[in-house]
């Protein structure tokens, strides 16, 4: 009823919700503990915090998740991040041989990363041979790879690669990009989302608050890390 009144008598005036009222309403919302635990586990597993996940699983008694695959996935990610691409490819194939067989783009990017690493290490002959034998056929199969291949091979043409137009390929960010692409593909093959759910819940919270701001004054949560409710300023 209150809401209707405020609409009729003053479209401009916002409804005021006191801290007591707000907390009472919050207390009425029941969230199952299991769901909370699942959310935390989802975060730890997706982000690859194996040790923490193991402890949390034990202490909370959350639904059992096979953490071995998480360890394997993190090992693959780490291998790419360190430039051991061949090692990463072998690990992915052990994990699930289907991933690279059915994902030509990812396979190309890993091979491209391998080429980048060879160039980084100054192994020019090997790099050329590798580009010719391994990457050129991929470019023939799919023309969209050709451009990227050309860009990568162009690295060989410059004396000072740090100052060349394609120098970004040697950047650590290129490794991270490739690593996260492999990580996402492995997660997808395990029917998991590539992003944890927790951050999207926080986004949803902020979105909801922004909408509510137009209609009401209430104890707002401004600092997400402390989750403190701040008193409405009326």
């Amino acid at each position, binding site marked *: 009823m209150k809401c209707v009144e405020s609409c009729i008598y003053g479209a401009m005036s916002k409804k005021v919700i006191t801290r007591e009222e707000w907390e009472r*309403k919050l207390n*009425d*919302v*029941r969230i199952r503990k299991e769901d909370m635990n699942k959310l935390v586990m989802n975060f730890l597993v997706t982000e690859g915090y194996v040790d923490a996940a193991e402890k949390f699983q034990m202490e909370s008694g959350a639904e059992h998740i096979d953490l071995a695959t998480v360890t394997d996935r993190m090992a693959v990610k780490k291998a790419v991040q360190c430039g051991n691409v061949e090692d990463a*490819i*072998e690990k992915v*194939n052990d994990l699930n*041989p*289907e991933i*690279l*067989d*059915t*994902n*030509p*783009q990812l*396979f190309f990017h890993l091979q491209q990363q391998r080429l980048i690493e060879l160039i980084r290490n100054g192994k020019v*002959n*090997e790099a050329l*041979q*590798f580009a010719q*034998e*391994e990457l050129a*056929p991929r470019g023939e*199969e*799919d*023309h*969209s790879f050709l451009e990227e291949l050309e860009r990568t091979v162009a690295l060989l043409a410059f004396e000072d690669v740090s100052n060349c137009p394609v120098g970004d390929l040697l950047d650590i960010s290129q490794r991270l990009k490739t690593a996260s692409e492999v990580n996402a593909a492995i997660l*997808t*093959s*395990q*029917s998991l*989302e590539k992003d944890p759910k927790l951050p999207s819940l926080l986004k*949803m919270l902020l*979105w*909801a608050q922004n909408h509510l701001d137009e209609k009401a004054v209430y104890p707002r949560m401004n600092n997400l890390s402390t989750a403190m409710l701040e008193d409405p300023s009326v």
Partner: protein
Amino acid sequence: MPTANTIFPIHGPVDLLTRLDSPDPETKLKALREIKNQIIGNRTKKLSFLKLGAVPAVASILSSYATQSDSQLVDADVSTSSIIVQSAAVLGSFACGFDAGVRAVLDAGAFPHLIRLLSNLDEKVVDASARSLRMIYQSRLAPKYEFVQEKNMEFLISLINSECENVTGLGASIITHSCQTSTEQRALCDAGILKKLISLLEGSLSQKNATLESLAAVFKKNPEVISKFVGLENERAVESSLSQRDSSLESPGTVIKNNTESVFKFVGPESGSALSSIIELTKDRYARTRLLACMCLVVIRNASPNYLQDMGIKAKLVYLLLELLDDPGQVGDEASFVFSSLVAGKKDLQQLAFENNAINKFCNQLQKSQLHPKRLQGVLLALADLCSKLESCRLTFLSLKVLNQVIDALTHDCADVRTSACICLRSITRSIKNLCAGYFMNEMLVIPLIRLLDDPSVSVQVAALGVISNIVVDFTTRKSTFIQCGGVKQLVQLTKSMHSTVRFNALWALKNMMFLADDRCKEGIFLELTGSLLASLISDPEPCVQEQALALVRNLVDGCIKSIEYVFAEDGTLLDAVGRQLHNVSDEVGIQGMYLLGNVASGNELHKEAVLQQLLSQADNGAQSFVIKLLQSSDSRLRTAAVWVIVNLTFPSCPGAFGRLVQLKNAGIISQIRNMVNDSCLDVKLRVRTVITQSMTFGDGLT
């Protein structure tokens, strides 16, 4: 052995194959792993290993270790199972998206061993074998699975009931691959497979996708199975919707979208049915799952007019598929094909798609350079279906200036693309407005089309003939462009093709060329065709070819008296062939034949007498004239055509009319016509009355 300079590959293929033969299991295992890592994702490597005979070598390792593992019953040696897992993975990779590999794996006899390994005690062995079999079943080369045998059905059910994801996926792939007839669909349905498949729709990503594909195979053109499926209560969906409703009562302020709720609103009366679980998957976060869910719904819609007919879901499917088209990968490539099957032959959906800017979206795709052949093919087919009925679609297409891209596709390397470019052009050239304006009769289009008549692929030839058939129906005098480009010669060549569809389509094109053509054009075509070739085509073993040949001659003799003379060329062999053919024909062939005779009978006395002789040729021997049978046909179009011949033969102002009337009466034809005064078809009735009036002018002596 690697030299200092070459480290790629670490071990060459030949070296690796030697290592496979090693008696040391450790060396064997390493070699297998290395082969696996070299071939995964790498088509060229697969091919080179294949040529060296790697597949039979790996298959024999698999079979010997599989036998070992069987005898060890419990606790198989770790290295034994590792070797089995690795060799299964190698074989699976050879079979993955690579038909030559699938054939090699099957030829090497690995298939039964992989099947046997599904009952191995080691989970990893089962998983690897199932995965490899799944790869094999994704190829059309995989052996057909006979569901109707009881043992096989039991085995399939055991696969689908498995705890292992790859094994259930294998079960679904087997269904997708092998379920083709309605008997098989019913058998699967009766075995209770549907219920199990519904529950798999809530499984992992790969299970969902495999299940959606298998459901589409079980549903295809089978309304009976679909209605059983829809009748199955989806208990889990109902439960989850209730629990969500409860929780939403507790927190009315929730902003989390209640997905199940909206699905229920969306399907309306079908809510709670198994159908809703498929509909829900059209909102899945994975594009492939959304596409497959759409495909399933399109299959259901096309088979059963009872389901998914409301505007909401139609619009939703159109919208979703157009959105999926934007996916840069395989999903986007396949989206056009699903879209085609959604709108093909359905005017309402074509209109709806048109209103949703579908033409623009597909045309935008055409403007991109270097499209994947599969995508290009799909886009062209989708445009073909969109423009097949509605002029508004064709006009929008033409306004977007992509015709040149379609013409370019006529010379594409891939035969499927050439075929679909032709099919697209066939729809576009149905635009009467543009045909009349002679828009399509230009060398840019005609020359590549004529070249396609020589194409090595029959389906390209047939599709090209389809476009030519349209563009030669040119109401202006531009037919000469086509003749100058050598089109007629080519078409006549194709009427001698081994393939009846090619003969049929070539005749169709020539028939359309003949339509309202001027004398010079007719003469040119006839000289090329010759009376004897036409006579043999009229007597072709295929009725559809006979029909087109007769229709062609019908158009040839239509018009001035001079053109009627064509059927009398070469001692009248052509007319004799027509007469002979009409003694025993289907309705469609009969209609064309009778109109042909009707056209000839509209000529001079000689022409009329010749037609009369054809009608009475058998009646002379005391048998009934074939015309009586045609006049008694249940097809009113055939009756109309037959009466027309009699009308033209008895036209009273002609000197021989009375004589012909007497002969027709003696053959019992006139009394048959008298019986038809109250024919149910108005057209027939009117012509019958004309014959009677004409006969009255000669007095009562006839009755």
